[in-house]
Structure formats: C-alpha cells, structure tokens
C-alpha cells in the first residue's frame, strides 16, 4: 500500500484503489498520523490526545489544510463567472475537486452537487419533492410529486438529519411517515419490510451506517424493496464514505448525502449525489444567482444540474479541500482503511466484557464499523465522558442526534467511541483501560 506523502494539491483525481487484503501496517499508520498536525497536541495537563470522536467530525491532514491555503493564496476568485485567469483557475480547481469526489464515491461528475453538508443535501431532496408537489418543475418532475396518502419510509435508527426533513415534508404535503424498526441487536428489523414499503411508498430514506450503532444497513435488500414499488431511495452516507469503500452506482441508490468534515475535509462543505436523470428532472430549491439560464422580470429558466442546485457564491476553498480529502483517502485505499477500522471495531467491542458496560449495537464485527455506543450501569454518559476526558480521551456523549433510536433502547444518552484512518489499537486499549475505572470512580456497585 502506498503512503500518503505523494498526495499533493493539484494531483489528478485518483481512481478508487485496487482490491487488496492488507490492513495499514504500523509504519503506514505512523506515516498517516504524522499527516495530522492536531494529533500531536496534548490535552488536560499535557496528556497525549486520544481522539475517539471522528464520527462527529474527523481531523484534517496537512495536505487538506495546505490545499485550502493554496487556493486562497494562489487561485481565489469567483467560479463559473468572469473571464480572467484567476476565475479560470478557481473554476478548474472547483470542478477538479468535484471530479475527485465523484470518482471516490463511484459517481459521474455531473451527479455530484456541492452542498454545505449532508443536512443541507438531504433538505435539497426533501424540498424538491415539496416544490414538485406544488407543481414546480412541470411534468418532468411528476415523480417527485406527493399527495395525501403517499408514504415516506425511514428507519428508527436515523440521525435527525435524515428524519426531521422527511417529517416536515410529510407535514407540508399530507404524505405519511412510516419507519422500519430497529431490532434488539441494533440492526434494522426487516421482518415486516414488505408491509412497510408498499405501493404507497414514494421515498425510502436510510443511513448506510448508523452513527450510533455502527451497523451497516443491508442496502441491496432495501434498494430492491424500493425498486419493486417504484420508490426513490435516499442514502445517508455520512458514516460510510469516510470509513469504507462506497460506490453509489454499484449500490444503485437514487440519492446520497455526505459531509466533507467527516471524511478528513473542511467544514462547510458536503455533497449530494443524485442519479443524473433524477437531478435533471428535479426542480430547484434554493434559488438566486448562478443557478439560472435566462432571467426576465416575469420568469426564470434554470441551469442544468449540478449548477441548478448551487445557488449563490459557493464555498469554493472548502470544496477544493474536500476534493483533496477524497484523493487522500483514495490514495490510502478504502479497502485497507476499512480493514484497519474493522480491527479497531473488534478492539472497541471488547468493552462489552467490562462489568456494567452495555454496548448499544451489534456485538459481532460483521457489517459494522468502528462506531461503538455504550452505557455504563449507574453512571450517566456525561459523567463517563468526563472521566475519560480527564485522561485525554475524547468520546462523544449524548443522543448523537438520534433521539428516537435512544428511546427505542429506553435510554436518554450514550457515550460513543469512533475511529478514523489515524486511530490506533493502542488508543483503543487506553480507552478500554480508562473505561474500566469509571464505575469505581463513581462508587457504582
């Protein structure tokens, strides 16, 4: 496996890496960690940082930071307008980044729409349905029209970003929200799938990987169920794209959303994937400059996708940074990254052996990533997080924007450890050891 030192700003988009069997070697992992300046800092009185909160947001390699700075220092200009050299170079960097992201997730360039993040991307789809239901987009947008009696299906495991926009869409259109339940092991319970996804279903929206349980959804089964009834699929790929090989064409989903900041890229940028013919048929949501063809005082015609969904001045530097992050991961090789993280998941799951610790999510490592949420008997998640933090170990505590899933398990909050490419087994071991001391600190029997 190649090291990352060769990835530099301006490199051509890299192909998704060839299949292999290795994980990251110790030397490779050391090289990867050296790429992330933040990992060198200490916290809470000079202790090394053990960052186990990458599912919330990942750290950034130097090359991504340099690429953003380089853009501002050398190429900064508005894109897709202006005839000067800088405008040309900025536009080229912006479009190359789109191509890099598209190649990384198995999409065509025209199928990737820049958005401020996954939340915004999912809302674009939801509002396109809304606008189509009001007649916008004409006949071409007929398949996006919803009426009372239509149904939208989500799952009980969704992040609020892939739940609330659909609730709101239902409230605006009279459609009914239904959901696939979660089983005790944290995986989707598909026993009643055929009764939930029916002829009335127009949208099936689900997370590729739960940001709480780490479970990987059975995409093929769900896509097949949606296709059988002519429903469109929307995949929340926030947690999958940074941690495993993802190919949207191969998965066969209609739309997908993911965020730059979770995949080693900057904040403020993410992407919406949409199958070309669907993006072409979809009415715009946010309107204004840059997404139009002809504007008169009476009416406007709209640019083709992806520009139709990129109104206003875009976050160009961040987009270029996200393109660089996709290249960086592509060069590392996502199959190897996934194997590395599978090893970390196995190490993390050993916390289930600590007395009083209960994992919320699958205990086996098949079809699950290194995102492990847990509760500690007699100690609230917030207090667990505080004791770990005192040892320099950063985990997330709370409901992780998935209140219904927590309610499903009868709990208000969990603590969550999650890994990224740069996470080491030693860090997970330090986490386990610190966690083993938590109940004693609070005198929990």
């Amino acid at each position, binding site marked *: 496996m190649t090291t990352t030192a060769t990835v530099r700003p301006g490199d051509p988009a890299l192909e998704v890496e060839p299949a292999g069997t290795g994980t990251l070697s110790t030397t490779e992992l050391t090289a990867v960690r050296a790429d992330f300046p933040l990992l060198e800092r200490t916290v*809470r*009185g000079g202790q090394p940082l053990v960052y186990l909160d990458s599912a919330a947001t990942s750290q950034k390699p130097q090359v991504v930071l340099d690429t953003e700075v380089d853009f501002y220092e050398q190429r900064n200009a508005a894109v897709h307008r202006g005839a000067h050299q800088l405008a040309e170079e900025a536009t080229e960097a912006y479009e190359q980044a789109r191509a890099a992201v598209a190649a990384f997730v198995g999409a065509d360039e025209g199928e990737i729409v820049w958005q401020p993040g996954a939340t915004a991307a999912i809302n674009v789809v939801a509002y396109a349905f809304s606008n189509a239901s009001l007649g916008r987009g004409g006949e071409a947008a007929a398949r996006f029209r919803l009426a009372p009696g239509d149904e939208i299906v989500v799952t009980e495991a969704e992040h609020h970003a892939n739940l609330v926009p659909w609730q709101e869409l239902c409230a605006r259109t009279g459609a009914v929200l239904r959901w696939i339940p979660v089983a005790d092991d944290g995986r989707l319970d598909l026993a009643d799938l055929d009764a939930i996804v029916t002829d009335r279903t127009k949208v099936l929206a689900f997370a590729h990987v739960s940001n709480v349980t780490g479970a990987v959804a059975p995409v093929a089964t769900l896509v097949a169920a949606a296709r059988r009834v002519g429903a469109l699929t929307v995949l929340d790929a926030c947690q999958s794209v940074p941690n495993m090989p993802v190919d949207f064409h191969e998965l066969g989903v209609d739309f997908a959303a993911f965020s730059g900041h979770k995949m080693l890229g900057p904040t403020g940028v993410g992407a919406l994937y949409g199958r070309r013919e669907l993006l072409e048929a979809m009415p715009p949501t946010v309107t204004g400059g840059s997404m139009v063809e002809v504007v008169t005082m009476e009416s406007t015609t709209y640019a083709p996708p992806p520009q139709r969904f990129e109104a206003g001045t875009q976050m160009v530097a961040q987009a270029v940074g996200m393109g660089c992050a996709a290249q960086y991961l592509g060069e590392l090789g996502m199959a190897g990254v996934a194997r590395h993280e599978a090893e970390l998941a196995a190490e993390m799951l050993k916390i289930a052996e600590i007395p009083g610790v209960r994992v919320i999510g699958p205990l086996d490592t098949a079809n699950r990533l290194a995102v492990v949420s847990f509760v500690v008997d007699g*100690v*609230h*998640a*917030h*207090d667990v997080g*505080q*004791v770990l933090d*005192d040892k320099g170990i950063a985990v997330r*505590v*709370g*409901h992780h924007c998935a*209140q219904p899933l*927590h309610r499903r398990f009868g709990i*208000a*909050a969990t603590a969550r450890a999650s890994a990224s490419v740069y996470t080491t087994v030693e860090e997970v071991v330090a986490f386990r050891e610190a966690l083993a001391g938590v109940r004693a*600190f*609070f*005198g929990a029997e």
Partner: protein
Amino acid sequence: MSTLEQMYQQVILDHAKHPVGRGLVDVPSADHGHLTGESHQVNPTCGDEVTLRVDVTPEGAVAGVSWEGQGCSISQASVSVMTSLVEGAPLAEVARLDGLFHDLMSSRGKGLDDDDAEDALGDATAFTGVSQYPARIKCALLGWAALKDSLARSGALATN
C-alpha cells in the same frame, strides 16, 4: 485534588446517589392560599431532564420543592442541593441564591471570593469545580432554571 475530583466533590456524588426532594409530591392547588407551579426543563444536547414542582406559602416563602428527573450526576445533584437550600426560604432569598449560583457558575473555577455569599450557598459551593467545564455548566443550572420557571408559573412572583 485533580480538576476531576474538584468537579465531582463528595457532596455532589452523595447528592447524586441520595437525592433530596426526588419524587413529585401532589400539592392541592389553592390549599389555604398556597400557590403552586410546575416546570419541565430539558437540556437538548444531552437529554438531561427535570420536572419540578414548587409550593409557595401565602407569605411568599417556599413551602416545598419536589422533582423528578434523569441525567448526569451534576444535573441531578444540583437539583437536590438546590432543593435543600431553598426549602423554607422567602422568595427574595431564593432570587438572591439564584443570582449567586449563576455568578458561581460564571467564575471559571475561582469561586465567589465572598464569604457571606459562599455561606449562603452552602453545599452549592461544591459546584465551583463544575464552572471550569463550560460544557457542564448548563447541567448544574438545569434545576435552577426549573425552579425559576415554576415560581413564575405559580404566579407567586407577581404577587410578592
């Protein structure tokens, strides 16, 4: 003492384990001129919750506080300490304690540097260590917010 031990003082751990006033008590409304109010407060980032009921005498003093809640040891211990502190106190004193506790929570671990104030706060000064952790301050304030809101809802603040 480590900053963690400063935060989780024994008083706090004890109150978290054996909370005062936990379990909502029915107060017959308008009983002998008493006023009652109830408030439900949540901390949306971590799901800490408290439902608090207050009973105010016709003379304008807290006759009783009862509550139900779930959350971290800081939020639960804070409601408990507050309950023991304000029971029997005139509303003007409750307002003063509320102000002092907010000042304490803004002190970034330094405390109030005012013996009278710290005497008045009693066990609640144990939360000084919490004020070093910005993310946890709202846990400590949850119960106080519920008390203030339930007093407002009782109507007692308008008449006193």
